């Protein structure tokens, strides 16, 4: 997985790339969680993520929960079509 982080005042935008599965999920946590813990508002750009499974969704849910605990927030800014399909299915469950 490749990623890029840009900073704009208190907002960190994380651009993720490739396929996010169980094998990659911890790497994604290692990128996002320190930003949340630092009190940053985190924007996730998933336009170049071609595949995401339940492990990836769990990272999003955990990130959101962690952000609430830290009085900040995580927002999805751009989402690829394959990821949007998985999110739509996950929303029935969440």
């Amino acid at each position, binding site marked *: 997985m490749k990623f890029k982080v840009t900073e704009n005042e208190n907002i960190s935008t994380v651009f993720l790339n490739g*396929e996010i*599965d*169980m*094998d990659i*999920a911890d790497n994604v946590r290692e990128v996002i969680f320190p930003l949340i813990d630092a009190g940053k508002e985190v924007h996730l750009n998933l336009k170049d993520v071609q*595949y995401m*499974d*339940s*492990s990836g*969704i*769990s990272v999003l*849910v955990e990130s959101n929960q962690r952000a609430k605990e830290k009085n900040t927030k995580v927002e999805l800014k751009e989402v690829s079509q*394959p990821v949007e*399909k*998985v999110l739509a*299915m*996950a929303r*029935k*469950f*969440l």
Partner: protein
Amino acid sequence: MSTENSDQTNLSEKKDFLVNSSSLKDVRSFSREVFEKFKINEDLREELVLAIAEAAQNIVKHAYKDYPDTQDRMAVRISCTDKELEISFFDKGKPVEKSKVKHRAIDDVKPGGLGTFFIQEIMDSIKFKEGDKPWINNLVLTKKL
């Protein structure tokens, strides 16, 4: 990857993989290759790939929960007729307790529970069988085409 039957109306491909999370991308690649070969509807392909990957992930996470460094292999077989797709998984891990296979409560979202939910959403049927030797578990997913 082995082709078990070349009859165009009853296609079948099987491949085995190391039981490890790093194999999941190979499981997806195999599935995509087979669906391309079987000419499965493109709109359906990625959903099926997700269901297959989630089932394989469940083997890694649950059947081999206590054996992260196992050298065991799991097998995936994709069979297709004109009317139905059948996807079978074979592993030698901890036997599945069918009563425990369910998605989790709404406020307890974890990969296993959500993954099982995805499989149920995508596939028409899910059956757990005892695997013929040397296998222990045999999960069979079907989808009408």
